């Protein structure tokens, strides 16, 4: 079934087409929700809400960009709206300094790198994590993030800087990445 056929079927409220669309995009979108959510159950709730919005607003989709990108946008906004309902999130996202995250080596499962990295992102405080997700992975600008989260743009920047630093520390500590110790050859050549 082509994407266009699925799209047309969904517009007619055809259950088979809706299922096809869901099967095609739900694994990726659940991963998005999982990065934002507190746990798997939260993520599934967000996914459900997001897909209901996708199906009900499908007629508003104009072929100006990828269909997946449009779905992803709705899912991300659903996640943010869900997080904003949580008082703890609103407090933490506005903090400039977050507490240091205590991590242990064995707390991150080392199955595949993608999973490891996602699990490490989930170790970040919720405010840091949200800004990092939105900026580094979803590609929103700090201005857009500030608007979405009702915070200052500068807060978004500083949150992101700290989030990135903290994530880097975690990844280094877990030995998932390694900081380059030697200068690259081409830099040495320039000197």
């Amino acid at each position, binding site marked *: 079934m082509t994407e266009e056929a699925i799209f*047309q079927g969904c517009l*007619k409220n055809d259950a088979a087409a809706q299922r096809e669309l869901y099967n095609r995009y739900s*694994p990726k979108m*659940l991963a998005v929700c999982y990065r934002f959510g507190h746990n798997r159950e939260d993520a599934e709730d967000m996914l*459900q809400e997001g897909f209901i919005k996708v199906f009900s607003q499908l007629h508003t989709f104009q072929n100006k960009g990828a269909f997946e990108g449009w779905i992803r946008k709705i899912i991300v906004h659903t996640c943010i709206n869900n997080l904003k309902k949580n008082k703890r999130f609103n407090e933490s996202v506005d903090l400039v300094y977050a507490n240091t995250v205590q991590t242990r080596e064995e707390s991150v499962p080392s199955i595949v790198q*993608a999973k490891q990295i996602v699990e490490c992102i989930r170790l970040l405080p919720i405010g840091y994590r949200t800004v990092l997700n939105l900026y580094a*992975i979803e590609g929103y600008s700090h201005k857009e993030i500030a608007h979405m989260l009702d915070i200052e743009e500068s807060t978004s920047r500083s949150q992101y800087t700290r989030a*990135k630093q903290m994530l880097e520390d975690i990844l280094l500590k877990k030995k998932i990445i390694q900081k380059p110790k030697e200068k690259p050859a081409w830099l040495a050549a320039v000197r």
Partner: protein
Amino acid sequence: MESDPKTIEQMESNFYHDEFEELIKQKADQYKLYPSDKVWKRIYSSLHTRRRWFIAGMALLITGFFFLAGNGLLVPDKHASAIKKPITSLPSTDLATDAEKDNSVKLPIAPNFSTFNNDNGSMSRAGNPTASADVPVKMSDLASIDNPVGSISPNGGQETGADEIPGRINAYTNSTDKPLIIDNYPLVSRATVAASIAQPDLSEDAQSKHKIAREEMKKLNWMKETASFAIPKIKAKSRFELQEYLSPTASFRTLSGGGNYETPSSNVQNIPIALTHLGSPNDYVDHKPAMGFEFGAALLYRLSRNVSLKTGLQFNYSRYMIEAYSSYVPHPATITLNSVFGYLPNSITGYTNVQNFGGNANEALQNQYFDFSSPIGLEVKVVGNGRLQFSLAGTVEPTYLLNRNSYLLATDYSNYVKDPTLFRRWNFTGAIEAFASYQVGGIRLQLGPQFRYQFLSSFVGAYPIRENLKAYGLKIGVTRSIW
């Protein structure tokens, strides 16, 4: 040109950080998680509420039906009510037994408790009203048995005045000291009765009087019991009955017309579009039955012992499914209409993206009809006794189409298109049924198969294909006498 070490360090750092961000994004995007099945189930149930409404509607109908049926079962018939009524108005408290149980203050008779009004023949209460028994008794209740009231009357005449007596015992006492006579039994005076009961153990004489008084009370109680079980008049059975019914159905259709392999579907034979596919539309259509329902109420008039005439109002919901294909691009679909008296050929062209022969995706078309009908017919009892019967019934039904959501096949059988103007509003339907019925209390429950067929096409005569709806159902009904 020599590079500044600080700049190089900054570049190095930027390179590392860009790489880091890239890594994060790349790995995060690679990550996939598969949701549990319940997520889709919840999404599906949220998106497809129509089915839920259908189920809820059916549940409501069935609940309503059984409520009515249950109501009929629980409401006692008039015969039972007639028996119960006197018992309610005359509580069966055995006075003598009461007296034996407690001879003191709880006795309902007190010497100066009630007085008999000689002027209007009624009893009135003159004492502490709370000390007496509670239920008002009408003299007329007693008058129904062998006319004892005439004897109760102090004047020896009939009790004709206001006969409300505030206390059951007061009915058997009066203020005068004349002896009471009921059914030629000479009774002791009120004072004697009262005195003997109020002071039961004063002397031998008093005890004797008390004994006599109790005997008399027993007679009175006997009279009361007899009154309670007086046989009411048996009302002649009404000829009118009300029937309420519900029938889940499997509805479908019969397609016909549309020409044969030599001639095209329309009688307008010079339109090339009609020549694409020849033969009966049944050969080209993939359709299947779907569940519907009907419910209604009918008034039955008993013409004879075994035959009843019936008429009523019924709501019908019929539907069937068509397997079709959707296409991304709408196509023109032409319906060639039959000509009027051999001239004035006409056709309707609409655009549709539902095709009959292949397309971009499968699509199940739901065709629905909502109509009211008024069945008129006969119901014949074939065999059975008063309780269990087997009957046959047949009706013809003028039908009015309230709404529909249906597709028409284009003349070339290639496309499906909607056109409300081609549907017939009034139609004519027939139904036959066989059912077993069982009498329970005041109602008769019935269950049996039925078949319903629409005689005229669902479409107007100008549309070359004819469609006759049919429905196979299981009818559940409740019938009860009215008037």
